[in-house]
């Protein structure tokens, strides 16, 4: 297994994108899950559908929509471009694509965790003088950690494998926006590249093994922490 410098760049980029996408999404995912679990509001169903769209639609379609939104003629793209921010065909676009695709997974995991919190704990917290926001941070957040750990490991893994949406908004530019899946695609397109493609697959698997182990250990610690 000998990786070319381009492959190494792809690996580094994949990591960077997966980490960034997960880190950026976590606070939003937590807030969204909280909204859904603890705040009854109108249009909840609509939000639910909107969040889960990226799951249902083929990634290519999501990529296309993101391109329409962020592109030269998209309203977000124009707004950003007037601020001097170019997203399309950069690694930031890949982050956005990964975040969009992984977000429903993240939210759902956090929600499941939140739904199992004993409501009496929240009552106790409120009655002890904590405003809702305080309760959110000091009770709901720590008790959602397991869900967040599970969700972010899902999201991280999903980001590592994201292909369809990324290749559209970020392009497949070696060294710049080429992630592991895109590199695999390039290799797999020629009969001679199969072994290289397999090497990259192995790297991908190794990465996710690492992430999953870390998360497993974290999850155990969290559980242990509650007992101790």
């Amino acid at each position: 297994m000998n990786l070319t410098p381009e492959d190494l760049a792809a690996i580094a980029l994949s990591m960077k994108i997966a980490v960034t996408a997960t880190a950026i999404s976590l606070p939003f995912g937590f807030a969204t899950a909280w909204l859904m679990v603890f705040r009854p509001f109108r249009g909840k169903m609509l939000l639910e559908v909107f969040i889960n769209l990226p799951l249902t639609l083929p990634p290519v379609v999501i990529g296309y929509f993101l391109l329409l939104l962020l592109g030269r003629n998209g309203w977000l793209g124009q707004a950003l471009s007037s601020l001097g921010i170019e997203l399309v065909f950069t690694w930031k676009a890949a982050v956005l694509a990964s975040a969009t695709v992984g977000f429903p997974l993240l939210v759902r995991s956090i929600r499941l965790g939140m739904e199992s919190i004993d409501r009496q704990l929240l009552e106790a917290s409120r009655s002890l003088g904590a405003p809702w926001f305080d309760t959110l941070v000091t009770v709901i957040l720590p008790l959602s950690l397991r869900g967040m750990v599970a969700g972010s490991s899902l999201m991280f893994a999903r980001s590592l494998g994201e292909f369809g949406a990324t290749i559209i908004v970020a392009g497949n530019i070696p060294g710049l926006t080429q992630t592991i899946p895109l590199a695999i695609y390039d290799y797999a397109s020629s009969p001679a590249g199969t072994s290289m493609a397999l090497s990259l697959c192995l790297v991908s698997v190794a990465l996710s093994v690492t992430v999953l182990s870390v998360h497993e250990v974290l999850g155990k610690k969290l559980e242990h922490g509650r007992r101790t």
Partner: protein
Amino acid sequence: QINLSAAASLKDALNEITAAYQATHPGTTFRKNYAASSALAGQIEQGAPADVYISANVKWMKYLEEKKLVELSSVRTFAFNELVFAGATAQKVTGMNDLQKLGRIGIGSPKSVPAGDYAMQAIVKSGLEPKLTGKLVMAKDVRESLMYAELGEVDGSFVYRTDARLARKAKILFVVPGKLYPQIVYPAALTVSGARNADAKSFYDWLKGRESKTILKKYGFSVK
């Protein structure tokens, strides 16, 4: 019944061709499978039912030939295509040298997309490579690079003539001179199992005929 595995770029033309064939040969049914040439080759290798294989490049046909999965005697060129540069830019672009003026340029990923490979060869041959690196946006396939051009994300893209014809906003700005890149061919073959299928054989022979060539031309392919 005929199992047809063909490159996705041939979809519209082949749909019309098979319809024409069915008009004269009632009772024949087609199972058409359009995907990337590499995917099709992989499927054939793994025993997926396919009688006729039409690839968008020679590489994967060669691969199957080596694996003895296609009937060697049946391999032939099905159609030719041309590389053009298409875009919706207002700038005046009439030849390869005008590319330096442009911003981003769409191109299929040279490693995985034949059109990109051809385009890259043309760029290298015309000595533009150092000036264009950094401007090139690699796409997953020709359609994607055409889409970039349609949406104005790039000023123009290297695409096949057959694809460019279908574009709405993007116009063909110039045709890439044929001497800059090897001839683009779509090789076709009967698979080993196809060679045993009488229906497939007669369809495969019919493909050589005038009717099918007319339809191919209509979709922008060239034939000889």
